[in-house]
């Protein structure tokens, strides 16, 4: 089932991407071109197959490592804010979100 221009608009909103109408038009064609090669996937019977989310779990049990709940990092605020677009007195500035 091919995507519609409305689908592209909805996905772009979810992805927080502003697309010009030319971009959206081109994106529609390219996404539909791509999903044509995805079709072959849906025909495969995968009943009973466990999804593989991290590769080594194909051959061994993988568990999340835990560490001691201890402070390991020191304050790096100045270095961390060096590449911030807008900063004032150590705070990140954003447009007003609460009226």
């Amino acid at each position, binding site marked *: 089932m091919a995507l519609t221009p409305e689908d592209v608009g909805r996905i772009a909103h*979810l992805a*927080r991407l502003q697309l010009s109408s030319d971009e959206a038009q081109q994106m529609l064609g390219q996404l539909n071109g*791509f999903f044509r090669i995805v079709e072959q996937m849906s025909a495969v019977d995968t009943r009973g197959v466990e999804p593989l989310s991290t590769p080594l779990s194909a051959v061994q049990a993988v568990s999340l490592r835990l560490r001691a709940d201890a402070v390991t990092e020191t304050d790096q605020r100045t270095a961390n804010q060096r590449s911030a677009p807008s900063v004032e007195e150590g705070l990140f500035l954003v447009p007003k979100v609460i009226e």
Partner: protein
Amino acid sequence: MSSPVSAIADLGVAALARAIAQGQFSSVEATQALLRGIEARRDLGAFLAVNPDFALAQARQADQRRVQGQAGPLNGVPLAHKDIFVTDFAASGLPTTAGSKMLAGYASPFDATVVTRLQQAGTVTLGKLNCDEFAMGSSNENSAFGPVRNPWNLQRVPGGSSGGSAAAVAARLIPAATGTDTGGSIRQPASFTGITGIKPTYGVCSRYGMVAFASSLDQAGPMARSAEDCALLLSAMGGFDERDATSAQRPAQDYAALLHAPRPGATAAQPLLGLRIGLPTEFFPAALSADVAAAVRGALAELHKLGATLVDVTLPRTELSIPVYYLIAPAEASSNLGRFDGVKFGHRAAQYGDLMDMYKKTRAEGFGPEVKRRIMIGTYVLSHGYYDAYYLQAQKLRRMIADDFQVCFQQCDIIAGPVAPTVAWKLGDKADDPVQNYLADIFTLPASLAGLPGMSVPAGFAASAEGAGMPVGLQLIGNYFEEGQLLHTAHALQQATDHHLRAPAVQPAPVSGGAAGEMSGQMSGQTSGQTSGQASGQVSA
């Protein structure tokens, strides 16, 4: 004119480390020579940032360590990093861009683990290398800072996404570089430029400080001119890192020792005796380019002469790996790239209304077309109502693909085939058709999905007029953590062949340049303004 510059530029990692350790020349001399070479080849577009002052300071420290008897295994060896590894800006003056306008000029507050480990081994960082934006691409044409040219033919792509790394190593600007491989980004550019590169098993190299693309696939690895050099670099780069949640908990490995260790029962003439190499039928389709098929068959015949047995195997879901990869990788990318919102770091749109408008405009301006496409695909397949049909189905197929490999490894020790269906194509040839780019990744995607180690080893050169003498790589895939066996096999091949020793002839630059060492013209990929003509003459030799 035989200058020490060309002599140093021709040396690999092992030879440079040896020469510096023996005092034949200093790390400062090697660093100066390579900086001059980098300056002279701006036409390749391989470097995004070079900081001669930082490089020479590191080289001086390396020379001091030698005098003090504190030299690490790679003491004084200059190299450069793919610009996907963050480098501490305060220390190095090197920005980290990931090839994206989103991160233009980004000053990282820390070094990636891979960068730290290579520095601890004694290496000297010359600069940062161009790559496809956020490592998404197979031609390096997706970099926001301009394409990279293939030193074998300046009209052709070097492959991607580690295209700057590949071009710089192939052109003898640096003996080695770091790369990252999510779906083939070390192996394919290595193949396209005639160098050697290895993507280790997922989890061998720390992902800490690697700008994330698809976290369950991303893996770092070395790119150099021989298997032996890759082994030395991987020994320094790899190993457990508590800062990476998926780092493999294994003791440190000496890959150079594994590379040199003789196989049980092998002889000098037949060092690969007893090794079973599996050839998946699906890796040799009728559509495979004749140039690639001939070079790969030639390398396989050589491996057979060296004692290996060639057996037919099957990877029946090879073709399916394309949609599976191009759903999983964009899904993870759309999640990882959510952090680029114009608040804490990176680009922010100049004009915007409310917060939502700021997000949307910032991301529209900061990301290039391929990154946007992948974010769109990923967002869609993770969205309500499509998750099961696309993302979950892809993850189930991912397990089936990984299981297929384990069936193969019951019949063979190593899997071999081409890295890519063709040699490097011309710049612009596939730029308008993303799906054509995706299809060309068919032979590298299966090992990526399974998390297996894979490498590209020079196999020969295209013989047809169309192939224009471009290099061809042989892909070797091993079972989990069998990097040593891959490197041993590649080394045996390189002891018997000289494809890896051939260097591209320096071609006339496409734009008119100045005298050697002083290319005129602007450097499109330049983000830092750090590269300058001051590389030479600053420190007395």
